[in-house]
């Protein structure tokens, strides 16, 4: 074409004009720590595995998840999911049902028979693990993954520890538990059941162990001094729950009084309900002060468990107990009122917490104890080099997720210790706060409600109360994730740049800013849904 001078121009020639020189601030892609990840006691990369689940690649999601926690099917049932409490979506509509998706992944893995890879190389080191509960089995898994030989000594006849003896079947079906335990064993972890370690140092020496991880849990039920008649049947909760696993079910009678306000109290009451009893929980404070998880309290109430608030047991008779009414003082502590009431009771189950059996540590030098548990340092190591400890036997919140987290953490440090190095956790990104999100971009979508077993069956059977998600709603739920603080390739920055100064690098590769043309308007940062772009002043 014979183009007239100046009036007619070749297309796209403005590339010669580098508008990047207009910029006083530059956009920079960042990664932030999602609040769910931050809140997870097991240190799961929740956002990371949800990312795969969103794509429908459940195996990838499961494998990503199990890098941190080998028990998603268990965790998806018994975890009290502080991740969901922390979830930013909770401030938008409802938190993402992380726990439900986790369970879906765990169940899917069992259904499909996904297995953990065996280590490619063996280190030749041998680690003793005492206790096959959540912390112990978690540590076993992680250490085995690192190529160490692992032998677990379990005092009881079955694997799982508190997962089996503390959690009723209706919350955690045993086939699920067994499947996830089995999978760890299949990695080549050696297990010795019914093997109570009485003397740690001796056992280590005999077995030529290079290190030990202790996770014996807290199984000794606390007693309260209740004046009791001779025939009054007073049991402890842990024993009751444990005996549910055996052949001989505990004899609780019709009218069962459970004393305490923790999750164990609820578990026992609900168990009793399923055995045909009419349980009543006696708790000295109010519902909002109750340490038990509220959802469980709610479920218990639905199932017909009675709760006597602001009451303490003063006396236990042959077929009745006497309770005293309490009031809360200004600081929230219960104070006696002198008012008494009599309740019929065939048995009284005490659920007042558990103590640790520290007998195996007798004679181990260097240890320190506090409040009946072993002190460990930041690397989960006790005062005795090479002896690490975790779970309920160290100062901590006592729940299964914490135990699993301890197992992972201890395994990392044990691994480093065995290699003569120190494990240094990578620095955490700053938190991805809700304020950094541009929530406009997230469609309104309430949390998926999981199916719940009908009430008649909940009152009479040990069938699992909470159902799982099916694939469709698991996907839906996964996709409710906001991906707080980390680019999920929504293409917004790429789209909203008026200067086409964002380069899309392709699937999984994210984006780059083309600073030749970026004028620094800040639209990409403002319109980034997940707050993964910072505007940084140009050097003046």
């Amino acid at each position: 074409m014979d183009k007239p001078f100046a009036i007619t121009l070749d297309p796209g020639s403005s590339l010669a004009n580098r508008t990047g020189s207009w910029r006083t601030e530059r956009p920079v892609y960042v990664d932030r720590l999602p609040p769910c990840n931050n809140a997870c006691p097991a240190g799961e990369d929740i956002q990371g595995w949800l990312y795969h689940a969103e794509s429908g690649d459940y195996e990838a999601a499961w494998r990503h998840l199990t890098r941190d926690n080998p028990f998603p099917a268990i965790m998806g049932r018994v975890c009290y999911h502080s991740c969901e409490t922390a979830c930013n979506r909770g401030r938008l509509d409802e938190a993402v049902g992380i726990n439900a998706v986790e369970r879906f992944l765990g169940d899917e893995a069992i259904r499909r028979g996904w297995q953990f890879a065996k280590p490619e190389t063996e280190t030749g080191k041998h680690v003793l693990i005492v206790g096959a509960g959540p912390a112990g089995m978690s540590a076993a898994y992680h250490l085995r993954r690192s190529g160490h030989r692992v032998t677990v000594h379990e005092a009881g006849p079955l694997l799982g520890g508190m997962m089996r003896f503390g959690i009723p079947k209706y919350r955690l079906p045993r086939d699920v538990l067994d499947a996830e335990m089995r999978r760890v064993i299949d990695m080549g972890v050696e297990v010795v059941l019914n093997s109570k370690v009485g003397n740690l140092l001796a056992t280590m020496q005999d077995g030529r162990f290079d290190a030990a991880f202790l996770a014996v849990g807290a199984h000794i039920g606390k007693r309260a001094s209740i004046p009791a008649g001779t025939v009054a049947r007073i049991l402890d909760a842990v024993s009751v729950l444990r005996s549910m696993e055996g052949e001989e079910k505990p004899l609780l009678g019709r009218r069962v009084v459970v004393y305490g306000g923790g999750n164990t109290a609820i578990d026992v009451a609900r168990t009793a309900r399923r055995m045909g009893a009419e349980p009543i929980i006696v708790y000295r404070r109010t519902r909002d002060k109750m340490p038990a998880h509220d959802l469980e309290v709610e479920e218990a109430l639905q199932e017909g468990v009675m709760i006597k608030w602001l009451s303490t047991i003063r006396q236990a008779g042959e077929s009745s107990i006497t309770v005293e009414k309490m009031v809360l003082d200004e600081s929230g502590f219960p104070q006696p009122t002198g008012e008494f009431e009599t309740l019929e009771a065939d048995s009284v189950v005490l659920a007042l917490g558990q103590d640790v059996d520290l007998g195996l540590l007798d004679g181990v030098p260097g240890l320190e104890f506090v409040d009946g548990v072993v002190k460990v340092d930041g690397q989960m190591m006790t005062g005795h080099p090479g002896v690490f400890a975790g779970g309920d036997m160290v100062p901590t919140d006592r729940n299964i997720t914490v135990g699993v987290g301890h197992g992972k953490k201890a395994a990392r440090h044990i691994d480093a210790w065995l290699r003569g190095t120190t494990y240094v956790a990578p620095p955490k990104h700053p938190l991805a706060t809700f304020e950094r999100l541009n929530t406009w971009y997230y469609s309104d979508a309430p949390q998926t409600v999981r199916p719940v077993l009908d009430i008649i069956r909940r009152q009479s059977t040990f069938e699992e109360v909470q159902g799982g998600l099916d694939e469709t709603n698991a996907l839906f739920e996964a996709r409710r994730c906001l991906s707080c603080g980390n680019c999920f390739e929504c293409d917004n920055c790429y789209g909203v740049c008026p200067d086409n100064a964002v380069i899309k690098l392709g699937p999984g590769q994210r984006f780059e800013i083309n600073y030749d043309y970026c004028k620094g308007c800040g639209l990409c940062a403002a319109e980034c849904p997940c707050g993964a772009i910072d505007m940084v002043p140009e050097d003046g």
Partner: protein
Amino acid sequence: MSFQPVKFYQTGTFTVGNRLLAPEQRSVQAATSRRNSLNSGHRACQGCGEALGARYAIDAAMEATGNRMVVVNATGCLEVFSTPYPETSWQIPWIHSLFGNAPAVATGVAAALKVKRLKGLLGDVRVVAQGGDGGTTDIGFGCLSGMFERNDDVFYICYDNGGYMNTGVQRSSATPPAARTATTEAVGPTPGHAFGQGKFVPAIAMAHDIPYVATATVADLRDLEYKVRKAMTFRGARYLHILVPCPLGWGAASKDTLRIARLAKETGVFPVFEAESGELTGSSKIRHVLPVEEYLRPQKRFAHLFGPKPDVAAIARLQALANRNIRKYRLLDEEAL
């Protein structure tokens, strides 16, 4: 509305793209292969809504026509910032003639292309004309109306930023009431642009009974692209009126361009709808209806309404106008009401 937005709870409904969507569900802007009809290096202000809107719309039209398209541009910011000799940002066949004649020039282009097609010299090539609100609702209005009533095969896009921004922010017939411009200063007893003036050209376009009229904002890309795509399925005169905030003229932060456009829609200040042959066929519903203050406050052109003594009466009148839009264009989901 026949437009079924992609229901995708994490992101897909509103974001530009998403890795999880099937390629055919993704927006044109999400594709690495997008045309970038308006290329980098243009001289639009930081955060320019018009530059963004133009690329959105023209890229979508290019996609819809398989790149068989010619664009006619009225004088205005878009024209000036995109084609200062010796550089042009356009990567398409593009012509600028005058301020007030883009619709007519487009008619001529369409006529020429039709004749060439009939002569077998050319396949089907479509025509898009575009201009700002000054070029469309004021000086070019006669030509626009003529193009409409003849039902010429032209898709006209108006980028509405509510004033003559190219010449230094003067009032146009699309300037909203109470807005401060260089010719409606925020002084005197009734500061800013007068109430009861101005016109809403989409409604006038509808009165021409042309095949398709729609409004959109630069904040809702998917809706915008859908409307462009839809428009290109019709023959005859079509009109798309896109709200494109102007950081300079509106006195807003450059990063807030899309936020303000969103607020215009969510407050009902700017109704987003579509119409066929003069009849309203669908409205983009407000997600979370907001008071007009939310829209007004981030803009310095309305700052005089929020001084030490807020102009409650003016704000109430603006709210009433928004309410009227909500009723008239059915901007709230009936189920939600």
